[in-house]
């Protein structure tokens, strides 16, 4: 009997479950949230694969996405599986392939355009904003643009000023765009699937340093129909003393900061924004009304940043609830330095978040 169960388990093996786990799962007869881990890279790859399989109109276009398996291997295996008509390698012309993508979207296809980093999206920004974001409005709803622009955003490590900028604030300002910023593998899978299925243009801001990070993942998330709602933030850690908002890599830093703060008796609530536009103002405000203190965290430049918008929204809607001024943690107001020691100083670190939270709690100057 065990032999038969082992065979069944082997047949049902999903994402290379080991045999023991398989048997245990079947014996338990429930999809428990076991210790399955998935990297963000695999999460994105599997989401792309599943959406391409489900809808023949979905295709990927960008530099190195095909033969090279993706500059960061996000599109690994997809060229072999779907062929060159659906995984299109392009010359180095962002303006060109972004424009083609938008044209294809006008036509009814569902392109996923990859920028090697969002710094290069500046070459195509006219198409993203004027050709994609504004078209539905300018055509009175007749031209829908179901396109996704995705790629790594923000600082990596030692890539210098022209390759380290965060574009969340820029794209987050544009009506007609939706802007997503996943953190965990669950975020990556759920939000990318939602983005591809969405009828509006979506800017999908990934993070290069997160690609290799593993996160626990449940079976529900692994299901091909899984998706996360756009415009809904997630409370990663509940707390009552101070609200810390963050997105992308900074969520991890905020959680680490929260652990440190907990040891000092400060119970921080960490909000993973997940969506930059439309911003989940209600979750943020509800949290601040509970904790009365706010620290916003982002990697990008401070002026006109995401934190500035969050601060404004909280001051507008929950002013009486604030017991302390809002603390903004952002990247330094300088082009990203190349020297490693200076680069470290130019990007928020866990200690910066801890100190800011303490300031908000009047526990330090």
């Amino acid at each position: 009997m065990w032999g038969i169960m082992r065979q069944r388990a082997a047949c049902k093996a999903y994402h290379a479950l080991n045999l023991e786990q398989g048997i245990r799962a079947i014996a338990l007869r429930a999809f428990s949230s076991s210790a399955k881990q998935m990297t963000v890279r695999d999460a994105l790859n599997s989401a792309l694969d599943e959406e391409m399989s489900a809808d023949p109109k979905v295709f990927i276009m960008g530099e190195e996405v095909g033969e090279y398996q993706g500059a960061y291997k996000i599109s690994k295996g997809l060229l072999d599986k779907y062929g060159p008509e659906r995984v299109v390698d392009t010359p180095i012309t962002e303006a060109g392939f972004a424009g083609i993508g938008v044209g294809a979207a006008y036509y009814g296809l569902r392109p996923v355009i990859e920028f090697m980093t969002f710094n290069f999206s500046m070459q195509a920004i006219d198409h993203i904003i004027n050709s994609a974001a504004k078209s539905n409005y300018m055509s009175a709803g007749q031209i829908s643009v179901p396109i996704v622009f995705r790629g790594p955003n923000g600082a990596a490590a030692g890539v210098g000023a022209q390759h380290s900028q965060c574009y969340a604030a820029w794209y987050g300002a544009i009506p007609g765009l939706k802007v997503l910023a996943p953190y965990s593998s669950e975020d990556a899978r759920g939000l990318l699937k939602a983005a591809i299925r969405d009828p509006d243009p979506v800017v999908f801001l990934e993070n290069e340093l997160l690609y290799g990070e593993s996160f626990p993942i449940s079976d529900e998330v692994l299901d091909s129909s899984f998706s996360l709602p756009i415009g809904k933030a997630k409370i990663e850690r509940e707390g009552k003393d101070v609200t810390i908002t963050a997105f992308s890599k900074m969520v991890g830093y905020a959680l680490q900061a929260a652990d440190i703060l907990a040891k000092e008796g400060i119970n921080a609530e960490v909000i993973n924004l997940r969506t930059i536009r439309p911003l989940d103002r209600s979750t943020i405000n509800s949290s601040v009304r509970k904790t009365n203190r706010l620290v916003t965290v982002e990697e990008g430049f401070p002026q006109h940043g995401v934190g500035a918008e969050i601060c404004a929204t909280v001051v507008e809607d929950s002013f009486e609830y604030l017991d302390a001024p809002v603390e903004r943690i952002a990247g330094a107001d300088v082009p990203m330095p190349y020297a490693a020691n200076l680069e470290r100083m130019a990007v928020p670190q866990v200690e910066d978040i801890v100190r800011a939270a303490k300031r908000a709690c009047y526990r330090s100057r």
Partner: protein
Amino acid sequence: MAMWLAKSRIITNFLKTKICTPNNSYKTLAGDCSRKPRGLWDNSSAAVLDFRRPESARAGGQVEAVAYSDDDDNDANQAMEFPGGRVTFTHQMKFISESPEKRVPCYRVLDDDGYPIPGSSFEQVDKETAVKMYRSMVTLQIMDTIFYEAQRQGRISFYLTSMGEEAINIATAAALTSDDVVLPQYREPGILLWRGFTLEQFTAQLFGTKDAASGRGVAYSLKMDNKEACAVAFMGDGCTSEGDFHAGMNFAAVLEAPVIFICRNNGWAISTPISEQFRSDGVVVKGQAYGIRSIRVDGNDTLAVYSAIRTAREMAIREQKPILVEALTYRVGHHSTSDDSTKYRSSNEIEHWRTARNPTTRFRKWVQTNGWWRDEDETELRESIRKQVLNAIQVADKTEKPSLEELFTEVYDRVPANLREQEKSLRETVKRHQQDFPTDVPV
């Protein structure tokens, strides 16, 4: 530039002695557009318009550049393989000249008086199509005149005329089918006209009434492959300086896209004359640089434009490749209602092109010579269109403007929560401070 003109004058004179026609060659703004050289054009098919190498698009195999002398035949067998293909090499160091000895000739079919040039080949146009084309060109002219005036009177905020470019607008539209997807710039309302956009709809759009949103006649349908259709992109001469032009042309060639690039070279980009826009022989020569088949056509010759676009369309669809069409013309009107072009060009020049080189008059002559149009038809048409436009304006003046709700709809596929909140908040504000808001926005 002076050398070009001198040389082309020599060629023109030479040709004049060979071809007996009553008319002189015509001058364009940029210089002489020499007559079709004899021999190339008789009984021609589209193939002679192909300035490409006959065999393959890849480099190698044939000595191509005009500048090279016969000495190079000795080297013809010596070739080398490089990424991109085989190239023969030469022991003589020669630079390809920055300007060709001869400018690319311009395809035309009707002379300035509207008579078909003997020996010219073109697509036949039946009476129904010809009359429809002519009527549309006149409608466009009248529409332009009245709407320009309306802007001057402050009744609409902005307008761009297509004066001088009626032939390009209408002949192109007529040569395409309704399945072809047109991506216009801003000087192609004639395409909309041809495809059924009514004068009332144009007026609604310009006056920004609530009916402007409906936009019939501009349908982008979902098409899959193997459809007998192509895409058509319009641009002006100035547009070819944009980086996008390079990207678009390059990609279209590499991806073998069935698209026709139509460049309306009208001599001016607002106040920038083409001599300050590029130093190439116009736009047609850029086609070969991308591996794109191209043609230069007289944009004021309705039949030539019609024929060229028909053929381009066939090629694009049958061979699944892009085609570049440079239509030479002249922008008779100002760039837009925000421009006064007499500030940077002479009124004489404008007047010359408005009268002696008018594409509509030229086509009219051809249509009338065929017995398809009479002077009475002309008066009747002009009066009727004028009345229609003025009537449409009266109606639009009285029509409601879009309601407040429309400010927030269609930003996204579905109105998101934050915009619904903003709308609610705006309504409350308008209610509370009615005196601060215009009365013509229905709440």
